[in-house]
């Protein structure tokens, strides 16, 4: 992350609960105006890290520097951020207007000024008429927007979102994803979001921070982490991936079963036992031209075919792979055009430029 000034810097954050190490050696810089996602499975420490940024947990060691100010040991009220929780935590006995004005009333602002600000925020989140209602009268998505408006009301320099969409149904979640991102871009407010939903992270963020077992595995743009995963965990956690057992036979060449594959992954010593990571979509199919003459041409038989809506996912027995199966994507058109069905034999080629090589575990 290079662009712009830094809004937030974490240095060597370490957190232990008794003997359990929740976070270790976390170093991270969040640039001004970006939306950064902490992504990982439950228990990876992403929420703990967010709560440390918010001052709701205290790190065992390490520093939190916000806008150049060391807030490592400042209580939450002495830090500058707005926060939206998974549960929204809207005050049930206060109207939407009073909820949004909650942090403003304390600022000795004129009533009219506060009213105007509340109206502005309600308009911003697309609920201009919700003011007199109580939270229980709103849908989950509407409550979520109000929580966002309340967090933004005091114009914080940092917005923290803790799994903000996970309590919503799929449609509502998708819509709010776009809305939050648009709002964030418009206000250019630095935002840190925690999620376990990879689609959410990839579609919304400027940068994704992939976490596992209390450490950061990779930081990168959504495209980076998807196409060039730094660790097997990242490759496996984001999207689907084939893991093939192989042995290096020379520069960029790997043998899987009886087949030798050409890749652009160099620098592995000959004879090393490796794992080849390749996504189901990284293949060339005969509808794009004859594949038999391409590098890494293979033939396989479709064992099972799962219909997943916009595409199908086939599990294939590949000739010469010695029983290692591969998942391959087909669009619905390709399924028809190529006559893909269970039992069908089919030529295809693998994209060597997309193969990622990792050392075999224990090797």
């Amino acid at each position, binding site marked *: 992350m290079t662009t712009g000034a830094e809004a937030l810097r974490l240095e060597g954050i370490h957190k232990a609960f008794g003997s359990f190490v929740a976070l270790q050696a976390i170093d991270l810089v969040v640039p001004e105006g970006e939306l950064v996602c902490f992504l990982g499975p439950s228990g990876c420490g992403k929420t703990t890290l967010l709560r440390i940024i918010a001052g709701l947990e205290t790190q065992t060691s390490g520093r939190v520097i916000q806008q150049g100010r060391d807030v490592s040991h400042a209580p*939450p009220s002495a830090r500058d951020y707005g926060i939206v929780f998974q549960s929204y935590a809207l*005050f049930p006995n206060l109207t939407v207007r009073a909820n949004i004005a909650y942090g403003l009333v304390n600022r000795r602002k004129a009533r009219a000024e506060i009213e105007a600000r509340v109206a502005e925020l309600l308009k911003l989140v697309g609920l201009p008429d919700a003011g007199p209602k109580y939270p229980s009268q709103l849908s989950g998505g509407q409550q979520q927007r109000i929580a966002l408006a309340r967090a933004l009301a005091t114009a914080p320099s940092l917005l923290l979102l803790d799994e903000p969409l996970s309590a919503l149904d799929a449609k509502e979640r998708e819509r709010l994803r776009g809305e939050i991102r648009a709002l964030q871009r418009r206000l250019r407010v630095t935002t840190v979001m925690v999620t376990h939903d990879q689609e959410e992270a990839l579609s919304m963020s400027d940068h994704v921070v992939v976490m596992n077992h209390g450490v950061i595995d990779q930081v990168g743009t959504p495209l980076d982490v998807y196409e060039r995963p730094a660790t097997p965990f990242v490759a496996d956690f984001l999207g689907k991936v084939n893991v093939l057992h192989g042995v290096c036979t020379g520069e960029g060449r790997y043998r899987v079963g009886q087949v030798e594959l050409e890749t652009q992954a160099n620098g592995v010593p000959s004879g090393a036992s490796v794992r080849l990571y390749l996504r189901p979509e990284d293949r060339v199919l005969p509808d794009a031209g004859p594949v038999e003459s391409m590098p890494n041409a293979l033939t396989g038989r479709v064992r099972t075919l799962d219909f997943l809506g916009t595409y199908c996912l086939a599990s294939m027995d590949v000739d010469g792979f010695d029983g290692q199966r591969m998942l391959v994507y087909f669009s619905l058109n390709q399924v028809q055009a190529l006559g893909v069905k269970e039992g069908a034999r089919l030529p295809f080629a693998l994209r060597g430029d997309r193969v990622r090589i990792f050392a075999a575990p224990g090797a």
Partner: protein
Amino acid sequence: MSTTAERAFAAPVRRRWGEALAARGGIVLVASALLVFLTLPLAMLLMRSVEDRGGAFVGLANFASYLASPAFARSATNTLAFAGLTTLFTVPLAFGFAYAIQRSCIPWKGVWRNIALIPILAPSMLAALSFIYLFGNQGWLKVALGWVGLTSVYGLPGMVLSMTFASFPHAVMIVLAGLSLSDARLYEAADALGTSEWRKFLTITLPGARYGLISAAMVVFTMAVSEFGVPKVIGGNYNVLAIDIYKQVIGQQNFQVGAVVGLLLLLPVLAAFLVDWAVRRKQQALMTARSVPYRARPARGRDGLLLAFVIVMSAAMLLVIGMAVFGSFVKVWPYNLEFTLRHYTYGFEEAGVDQAYRNSLVMATWCAFAGAALTFLGAYWLEKTRGANVLRPVIQLQAMMPMAVPGLVLGIGYILFFNHPANPLGFLYGTMTILVLSTIIHFYSSSHLTAVTALKGLDGEFEAVSASLKVPFYKTLWRVTIPVCLPSIIDISRYYFVNAMTTISAVVFLYSPKSMLASISIVQLDEAGNVGSASAMATLIVATSAVVTLLSFAAEGWLLRRTQGWRTLSR
């Protein structure tokens, strides 16, 4: 960046160490209050039990000499017989009653339920007085005693009857809660397999209710073991440990032996408390989120039988209450049934207890307001603030302790602690304040649990959101936490009031002639042979508790309608 207009609303980032200090200070305050008014008095009790009259350490000599006395053996077996029989009577009756309400289609369930709860409003001595009216030497139903082979109601029979009445509502409430945790799916599965009603009852209902039954048994047993009023009024010569303590401490000023008996009394209660605690923990795992509550379908035979049972029980309870009330308004039971108010006027004056009722009102009101405020704030500090983590488990433990400490034991602890010449808090001794404080502590556990449950029901992030908005925690406490928890706070208030009106066990050691309470005066009036005035005092207590309970329900309803419209709103 934000626009300039927006920046005008930006947070003035200030360090609020004061707030953090207030949060920690609150915790320290709660911990020290519980220490001074609960733990230290009990520790004092422990110390005195191993000292002689002169204050020299004598080890377990006091225990040895007391345990060796034949009086102890008698009191101990009597206490166990009394508590055991009461439990054997109360729990099955309560189960039948609760089963009828929860698992049948009898009409007017609300009415029966409320009748079953009436004894809570009465001092336990009221039942004893009623049973004396009914079965005593001049009893109206004395002949019925012969049918079951008894010669006199005084002693064990009267005690068990009275205690069954007094503990019945507590058992019913626990069993009701246990029965409400039922999964209809189990019954549907059994039906699909063609299971008989009786087998379903044995294989699904009873196992499902067993934790509730054990819990109810432990509560009833505990109440009986530490009961003082009932044996005093109807026990005759049937000595129990609670009476021994009273005689040793008040009669002979023998604090050492009093402390010994108090500690011995603590044993069975502590055992019951631990069993109950273990059982409750298991019960929480019984229901899953997928369970569907069971709804009874009409079954004529079963419903008819249960309705008959419920009517008989309710009638019996109304008879017991009604008997004492009636007795308080007639000249000389059972010879002259003319209406009179002299038990309420002349009777009180003659015994010098005409201030007692007023004192009780004052004390109960203090307990209701101060108790609810202290308990709720204590629970709030424990649940919703951060920091001072070492003290939290200490507070939690202390908050649950009063449940396992009989009032008599607490009372002696208070005498020993606050009457100690070196105690700077000694000025409290004999005042109304100490009565209020001891009563709040005595009933702290249940109130604390009610407050904790209410607070746990709130979103755990309110405080975090407030902090992020730079709103100090006390503003959120005032604007959100208290309003949302108000119904529970009123419940706590009512609980304190009613218990302060009816309690006797701790305060009987702590009152002074000036702070004589209504409940204690019942014992005194009864001892002086003035059963009519004793009943009059008991009637006043029941009436007051009932009125205040109704008023608090009305207030709760009014508040809910007026300020808490948000609760009932839906989209």
